[in-house]
Each structure stands twice: as C-alpha cells, then as structure tokens.
C-alpha cells in the first residue's frame, strides 16, 4: 500500500522535527573576549595626586559602565614632560583603543599627540589642552571663566579693594595663564584692586610656602592671595596659619584637595573654586570610547565649576561634589 509508506515517511519527519529544532536552538553567546580587548589608556599629570585619583575613580566607573578595559598611568610629577612622552610612546607600542591624556605641556606634547592619532588611536585631552588639531575632544573646565569667578569671590571678600598676589605653578602653564587672565580681566573692573605680583612655585607645597612667607613678610603686605592650584593653596594656607594671619590675609584657592578642604573648614582658606574631577574622568572615558567607535564626539566639553566657602562647603549639593563617595 503506497499510502501507508507515505504516512510512515511523514511520521518519521514529524519525529525528526524536535531534534532539528533542538539543533537550531542551541545558540552560543557571543561576547567580546576580554583578552583581545585593547585598553583605554588614561595618562595623567601626576599619578599620585588627589585630583587625579578622583579622575581615575570617574574613569573606572565609566569603564565599568561601558565594559572597557582601563589602564591608568602617569609620571610622578606634573613637570615631568619627558616622562609623559615616554609613557605615550610606551603605550602606543603596547597598543590601545584610545588615549586620554592630561598633557603636562601645551606645546611640547602636540607632536606626540599627532603621532598617536596618525596611528589610528583617538586622543581625548582632559583638564589641560594640548596644541594639536587632531585631538578628538577636550574635557575640562573653562579656566578663564574659573579665574573670573575666583576673582569675583575675592572682590566680595575684600570689599573690592586691596593688593593681591597670585600664586601660580609655572609661567608656561596654560591653565594657570588662562586663570590668571580671567582674574586680571575680572579685577580690571575694580580700580581699587590690583595684582601686585605673580609668584611661581610649581607643584611643590613647601616652595609655595616659602614664596608665601616671602610675600607676606616683606613690606607692603598683600591683602589677599589667589592660589591657582592645590599645592599653592596648601602651601599658602599652612604659612598663613603659621603666621597667624588667617582672616587677615584672604586666601582664595583653586581645586579641592582634602587638605584644602580642611583649611577651608578651618577658615584659613576663605573660598575655593572647585571642579568635578570625577565627572571629568567619567566623561573622558565615555568620549574616548565613542571616538574609538568612530562616533561623532563633541570637540569641547566644559565641566562645571563652583566657588564655595566654609559656610557653603557642607551644603548637600557641594558635599556631593567635594567629597568622593567611598564606603
């Protein structure tokens, strides 16, 4: 009977169906192999600095969020340009998906950055700019605007009169230059305020202390000091405290290292211009990954700055910005 053989065939096919389906449904989860994934390298100015560690925390959070591998490195000193150059070359040789660089020098590192970009690795500059057109994006504060804000706070604290000293890191520091320019521009609106001098002490706290003492000891003691970075602020604060001049000599600082915050609470530092290094770190990794993924990224991302004093530093919002949340 032909019909029977046909139905037998059909029955066999029906029985084979689940087997085939089972074969189809066994799918293999495809995930990028962590071993073959190249890292996003974050090279900072000073790998031991508090600021940079907060940047690192933000970068790590972003790396975790976006599933990237992050390598954090940098010279031990902000002025070690050659050391940073060496690190750039080293990581370029190792291979990386993207480079996040806080350049130690605006001009000198431009060529290195160009070189990295030519090798197909996108570069994101953080905190400080670098003189290269090939940088995918810059992420950091507007230093000129920060300078103006700090100067405005000083104007408020000093009653818009007096002689002031600027304590900066080095004449060539681009960030410091811009901050200084912002300060000068802001103060130019107040004829009774003048910048007496600009002193340079690198990132050396004790040298900054020395410079402060010199400035305060001489004749014609300035009414206030503008410390353009954390080292300068701490150096100056220690010296003012030691000389018992707190309150008398107004100290307006930049950045928010833990020690600065202590001085701020103690009232030695009257106000400080804070930024959010965690956000900078987070956004830098996010942007670097986008650039590595050939996505369009913003050429310039400006992060928030605020001026706080001992009164406002424990306001809930400021707490969140000032103190990294660690368990």
């Amino acid at each position: 009977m032909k019909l029977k053989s046909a139905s037998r065939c059909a029955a066999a096919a029906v029985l084979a169906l689940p087997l085939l389906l089972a074969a189809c449904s066994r799918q293999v989860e495809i995930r990028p192999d962590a071993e073959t994934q190249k890292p996003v390298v974050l090279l900072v100015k000073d790998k031991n600095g508090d600021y940079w560690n907060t940047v690192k925390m933000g970068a790590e959070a972003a790396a975790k969020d976006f599933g990237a591998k992050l390598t954090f490195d940098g010279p031990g000193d902000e002025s070690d340009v050659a050391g940073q150059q060496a690190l750039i070359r080293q990581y370029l040789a190792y291979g990386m998906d993207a480079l996040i660089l806080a350049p130690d020098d605006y001009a000198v590192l431009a060529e290195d950055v160009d070189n990295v970009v030519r090798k197909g690795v996108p570069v994101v500059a953080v905190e400080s700019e670098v003189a290269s057109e090939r940088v995918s994006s810059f992420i950091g504060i507007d230093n000129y605007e920060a300078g103006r804000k700090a100067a405005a706070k000083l104007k408020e604290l000093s009653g818009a009169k007096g002689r002031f000293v600027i304590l900066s890191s080095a004449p060539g520091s681009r960030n410091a230059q811009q901050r200084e320019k912002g300060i000068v521009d802001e103060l130019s609106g107040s004829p009774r305020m003048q910048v007496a001098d600009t002193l340079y002490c690198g990132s050396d706290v004790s040298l900054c202390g020395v410079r402060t003492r010199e400035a305060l000891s001489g004749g014609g003691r300035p009414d206030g000091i503008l410390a353009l970075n954390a080292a300068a602020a701490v150096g100056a604060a220690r010296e003012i405290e030691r000389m018992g001049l707190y309150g008398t000599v107004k100290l307006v600082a930049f950045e928010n290292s833990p020690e600065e915050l202590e001085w701020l609470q103690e009232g030695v530092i009257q106000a400080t211009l804070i930024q959010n290094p965690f956000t900078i770190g987070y956004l830098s990794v996010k942007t670097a990954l986008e650039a590595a993924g050939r996505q369009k990224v913003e050429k310039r991302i400006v992060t928030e700055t605020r001026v706080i004093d001992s009164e406002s530093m424990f306001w809930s919002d400021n707490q969140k910005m000032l103190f990294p949340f660690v368990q």
Partner: protein
Amino acid sequence: MIGIRFRHYRFKSIQFLIAVSFTAITVGVVFFVSYVLYDKFTRTAENNAVRSNEQIIYQVTKNLEYYIRSMTIFFGEVEASVREDGDFAGDRLHEQLNTIFHTREDLVTIALFDQSGQKLTALPSVPMRSNTHLTTQSWFRSAVENPNHLSFSVPHVQNLFKGQYKWVVSMSKGIKLKSGGRTRDAVLLVDVNFKMIDDLTSSVKLGQKGYAYIIDESAGNIIYHPQQQLIYAGIKYENVEQALKYTYGSYLDESTGVQRLITIQTVSNVGWKIVGVSYMDEIGTTKREIGGFLVWLLAFVLLFVLGITLFMSAKISQPIKRLEKSMQLVERGNLHIEIPIRRDDEVGRLSRRFNLMVGRIRELMDQIIAQQESKRKSELEVLQSQIHPHFLYNTLNSVVRLAGTGKNDEVITMITSLSKFFRISLSKGKTVIPLADELEHIRNYLIIQKIRYKNKFEFELAAGEGTESLQTLKLVLQPIVENAIYHGIEPSVDEGRIAIRADVVQGKLRLQVADNGVGMSAEKAAKLLSDGTGEGDGTGIGLRNVHERIRLTYGDGYGLQIESEREEGTIVSVWLPILKEERSDEA
C-alpha cells in the same frame, strides 16, 4: 494564448488547490500557535522576572531591617552606658565607649553633645574641627526637635573630627541625662559608614545589569546607590519621584530612555525604601530568544509543510493527470488503451472503470461494424430477391407452355399475378409496406406457384382483424413460402396445403406460414436459424436471411420461429412489432 490557457489550467488544478489551501491553513495555524506561545512565554518570563525581583528585594529589605535593628540595639546599648554614667565627660565612659567602638568596623563616630553643641564625650579620640556648624546639621536638629526618638539622617559628610572626611549615616537621639540631681538635655550621635549597607545591597543581582538602591521616603534623597558618586556627579539619574509613590510593588519606568522594571519595598522603622532596578532588555533577551526560536520553528514548519503538501498533492493529482491523458487518447480515437492500475484507491477504481468502459466501447464498435456489414449483405439480398431472375424465368417458361396448350385464362391469370407480384416486390424501393400489400404479394406468388405446380397444393390467406393496416418489413413471407413449397410440399405425395395467417399475439404481430409437407426433425428445425453455414441443398438460407433482417431492423425480440414435425408439416412464425401507418425514411 496557449500560455495563458496553460497558466489558467495550472491555477485551477487540484494540485495547486491542495498545496495552497494546505499551506495556507498550516501557516495560519502555525502563526497563531506561535503568536500564542510567544505571548504566553514572554508574559510568563515577565511575570517571573517581576516575581523574582520582588523576592530578591524583599530579602534585601529583610536583611537591611535586621541590620537596622541591630544598629538600633547597639544605639540602645550605647545610650544605656551613657545613662549609667553620672559623669559624662569622664574617662570611664570614654573608656567604656572606646571598647564598644572598636568591636564594630562600620562605626565612624560615637559622640555626646549638650544642647548647645558642646562636646561631652566623643570617639574617635581626635580633636574636633572648627566651623562644624554642628547645631545646624540635620541629625542634631532632628534630635533636638524630637527628643527620645532615634532618627536616621540622610548620607552626609561627617566634618566634626580632624582626619578624613567620611560619608556617613547619622543615628541621633535627644536624651535627658541625670547627673547629681540635675537633668540636662543632650544629643547622642552614632555615625555609621556604608560598609554594611553596601555589602547588603551590592550582593543583589537583578539580572546582568540590575541593581538596588535605597531612598529616604520623606524627601526622596538617595541614601545609598551602587553608583552613588555617579548620581552625585549628576551623570546618573534615578526617577525617585515615581518610586516615592509606591510603598511596595513593581512598575515599568522609561524615564532614562530604556525600559526598566522597578521593584519597591519599604524598610520599616527608618522610613527607607529599597528600589530594585532591572533592565527589561535582559528580559527582552529571553523574549528575543523565544522570538528567534519561533521564527526558526515557523520557517522550518513552513518548509516541511510545503514539501509535504507538494508531495501529497502531486501524489493525488498525478494519477488523475495520467487518467486525463489516457482519456485524451481515447478522445482522439485510440480505443486500444489499458491504464495500468497502480493502487486500489479512488483513482485506481476510476481507472479500472475507465478501462472497462473503453473495453465495452470497443466491443460495441466491433458489434456495430459487424451488424452494419450483415445489414448491407441482407439488403443486397433483398434487392436480389426483388428481381428473382430464376423465378421469373420459370414462370415465363410456364406461361409459354400454357400459351402453347392454349390455356389463355391461366396465361392471363399468371401474367397478371406476375405483374402484381413485381409491383409489390419493388414497391417504390420502400422496405416497409402495409401487411395487406405483403399478403397481396404472397397471394400472387402462390397463384403463380399453384399454376406452375399444377394445383399440387391449396392455400389460404387469413388476416386477423386490424392487422392488414399494420406495417411490415417487405418480402418476409416469400422466402418462407418458397421454402414450404420446395422443401415441404414438393417432396410430399399428399395434396399440399399452405395456410398463412396474420394475428396480433402478445402485443406483437405474428405471421404464420403453416404447411402440411414432409416437415423436419426438431433438431434440424432448431439449427435452421442459428447455423450460418447451411447444409446440403441450401435449405434455410432464405429463412435465416429473413430472420437476420427482422432482428437487425427491430431487435432481438423479433424474428422467425420454426416448429416442425416429420411427416406432419412445418409452422414458421414471423414475429414483428406492431407498427401502425408510419412513414419510415429508412432506405
């Protein structure tokens, strides 16, 4: 045109119809089943996700409640120690608290302040900072405002002591202290860090990306979040407003752009809520997997069914097509076809019937051919018998002899009869004539024969009532009568008698020719009509001819019937249908 017709034919074919309808039905059913399954699976997956999230969050809530209870108990112990001691700023209390302080790693501060914010005793044993704004801090205010009530603060940075700035949750309570009969108001503070809360909360696994966070139900402040810093930095956002509306339960949230399942549980006593977040796209993964699987299933079933239907429909329609082809051949005239019967199904039976039918047609065709041939032959014979040259010759001889002997009357009778005989014989070429004419014809014949045989026999003709007008095939009686004379009367010694009768019997017309001649045996009589060869003297050829002619014209129910007995005579009956005055155009 042929192409169009061909296509038209194809689209109307059974095979096409079966294939299309089977496929359509199967696809419909499979689609429906797939949809139902998909719907059911995904809903179950979602429900399961919701339920499991709720269970997990419930568990976390229980753990957190346990932790808070243990902290409350701990706070109670500290409070008891403080109350026991009369001298609050003394070393003994400090020592005691210090012991307790180091038993736990989640403690940051234990401190006792008076109402003005003056430190009475405190741990860790480091100097206090200035500018702490202690009395304006929320934990202090709530302790003063709600004395004897343990309150939990939102996370804040503890700025009281030199050293690190730490994020803590403050437990504070306004208490009344009795020392030396005086009662003073004081605030007891215990700060805890997030170690335990983090341990409890980060162990939660809600899928791959899911997490849980804690909010304060009064203001919606985030107490703890696994990505607290991202929240604080404003990079991450949680839709706390929505979560605040729920005490417990689950809902879908799309405020961050992705669909997330939010599960909420309230922690009793502290006024915290645990919010579990899991990502729908992970549940969606299951959904996609199921979807993908069903698509595969659909594709496979489709292919399978298509194959089966094509096979089945071909199986059904092919024999029909073969049958059709064979029929076409038959149509073109090829009757020598035998369809091979492969199966015993409907088509097989149809084929067999077809074969039988074709066979029958073939038989009938052969039969018709044979009949036509014999008809033509007998017609020719009729034509011949119309002329009867031999009879004419004999008759004329007799006439000459009679004329020689001067029997003029007989000559006249004979010539007249001959003339009538031939007139009716020809009868304008008609084959069917009235019975009266037939009888007249045979009468004339008998008259002539009687004279020729010198009155050796007598004859009589009788027609039943109404029979004369009936129609009959012409010249059926003459061969019979001729036979009766030549083979019956002539050999007989007796005087012969021939009686011819016409009657209606059993609805038929019966012509009977009876003689009293020598007769024949019954066997011979029976053989006379059936035997085609005709033996010896050719007796019976004329009879058979008449018999055949009648049967060919009117059918098997008619013809001759012979009864005979030796020495007694023979009766030949001619059976004809009753045909009334009807013009037949048959040639």
